[in-house]
């Protein structure tokens, strides 16, 4: 009885305090903008089945999610990139032990306006475009127009993934950076809108944002391999060269409610939601 009174007081008077206590029934999920729709769909379906539990999902970028996991203000960080060494060190200092769970895959689409005649590039060309070694579309067989580079802000996991895997070609010693002239937009939707209206623009984002107003480029690993379009089949078969895993990060091994939610996300039903939101199920 006393405990019940305590919990009720807790819930009404100190909601913030309660989030940190172990016997509450809510989860805070925070991080990747790429994954926010996916996590939201999981949360909605999950809450339909478990109406006593509450799951809050907020975006902000993978870095934002991981830094709140480290500061202890969320239970699950959703991230479209691996956690960095530096972040692990910082987490350990604060007594947090990041635990990685792969929940889905995402193909990164490189998009241009449908009015742009260029429709395929190699990975090496992409790196040259985004580091401004190629600055005109005519070098790629397009019109004589200056290329407008669109990138996500630095808090985006997509930004980090693209830099490490396309610009730096997975080479940790590489010092390649996005050209300083690249426009930094604060959301994938902003990139989608700018690409739709600007025939000289090129941008990148998760496959889920492709619509008929943008044209995804077919990409080849090198000049001798085939150009592949960003489709679910090509990501599963690993033919499409820029795909990445999407992660949940928890503090230590997941327990109680967090575990229940993650089990749901990885279940058949959870992975069907992955497909429904234009992502690719995590390979078993």
């Amino acid at each position, binding site marked *: 009885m006393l405990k019940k009174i305590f919990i009720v007081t807790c819930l009404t008077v100190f909601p913030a305090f309660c989030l940190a206590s172990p016997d509450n029934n809510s989860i805070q999920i925070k991080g990747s903008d790429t994954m926010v729709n996916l996590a939201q769909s999981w949360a909605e379906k999950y809450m339909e089945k478990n109406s006593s539990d509450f799951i809050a999902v907020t975006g902000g970028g993978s*870095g934002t999610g991981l830094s709140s996991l480290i500061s202890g203000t969320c239970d699950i960080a959703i991230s479209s990139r691996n956690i960095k060494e530096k972040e692990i060190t910082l987490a350990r200092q604060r007594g947090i032990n990041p635990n990685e769970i792969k929940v889905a895959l995402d193909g990164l689409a490189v998009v241009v306006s449908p009015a742009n005649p260029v429709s395929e590039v190699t990975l090496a060309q992409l790196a040259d475009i985004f580091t401004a070694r190629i600055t005109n579309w005519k070098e790629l067989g397009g019109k004589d127009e200056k290329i407008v580079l669109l990138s996500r802000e630095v808090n985006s996991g997509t930004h*980090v993934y693209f830099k490490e895997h396309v610009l730096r070609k997975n080479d940790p010693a590489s010092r390649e950076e996005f050209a*300083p002239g690249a*426009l930094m937009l604060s959301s994938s939707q902003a990139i989608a809108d700018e690409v739709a209206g600007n025939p000289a623009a090129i941008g990148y984002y998760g496959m889920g944002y492709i619509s008929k107003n943008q044209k995804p480029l077919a990409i080849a690993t090198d000049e001798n391999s085939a150009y592949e379009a960003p489709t679910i089949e090509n990501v599963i078969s690993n033919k499409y060269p820029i795909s990445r895993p999407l992660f949940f990060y928890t503090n230590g091994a997941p327990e109680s409610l967090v575990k229940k939610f993650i089990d749901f996300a990885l279940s058949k039903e959870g992975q069907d939601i992955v497909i429904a939101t234009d992502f690719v199920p995590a390979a078993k």
Partner: protein
Amino acid sequence: MRKLKEFIIEKLILLCGLASIFFVAMIFLFLLKEGLAVFTTVNPFDFLFGKSWYPISEPAQLGILPLILGSLLVTLGAAIISIPIGVGCAVYIAEIAPPKTKETLKAGIELLAAIPSVVLGFIGMVTLVPLVKSIFHLPTGLTALSGSIMLAFMAMPTIVSIAEDALYSVPKTYKEGALALGATHWQTIWRVMLPAASSGILAAVMLGIGRVIGETMAVMMITGNAAVIPQSILAPVRTLTATIAAEMGEAVVGSEHYFALFAVGIVLFVISFAINVTADLFLHKRQ
């Protein structure tokens, strides 16, 4: 009893008066405490004059020169647009407009001041940005110029209302004297009223600029945020304020990036403090 009441009220008001100074001091101390920590890893010269801003690379490159120049360029552009229009508007309201027009104009200006900056930014993004792109045949309309035009709208209400106030407080005898000597209305405004109100108008301009340099949301939405040293006003820029707003969420508390953003905050604080002090000097000169 009455004396006691008087005493308590007096002290309460004193407390309120001191509160604002206290808060400013605390905020500045906090900024210093968090921001100066970055200089244990980066030397101040490289920080202020470094040309590359790659805060999340290993090792991070923390040079804020492009950001400072970006902020200054957008502010300069906004000043060039808003000062002539703002001062002209103030002269019209204070000296020329008939009473009815005057009231309507003043209400309009107040309404302009009431538009939230995110709304202005959004309007700018869908109307101004494509317009700038097509007029100047640019690869993109997300440029310093777009930011300047939008910010000019934000600076104008401040400039107009304070400049109008300054013109209004010029003694009536000046104007009467000038007119009595046979000067035309325009000669009176140009040779007598404007010089007499000059310190107040300068203060109005400085306060308007102060508002512009601290503005965040609208510039973040329409200036493109590319951290490159701007070659012209038709190029994208990244401002100090937009950098803090866009990156604070990413920075892990206690990391080098986090301290660097606070140091950017110090730079911003110093710039706007200098502008406000200058405005204050002009205002006091008038009195």
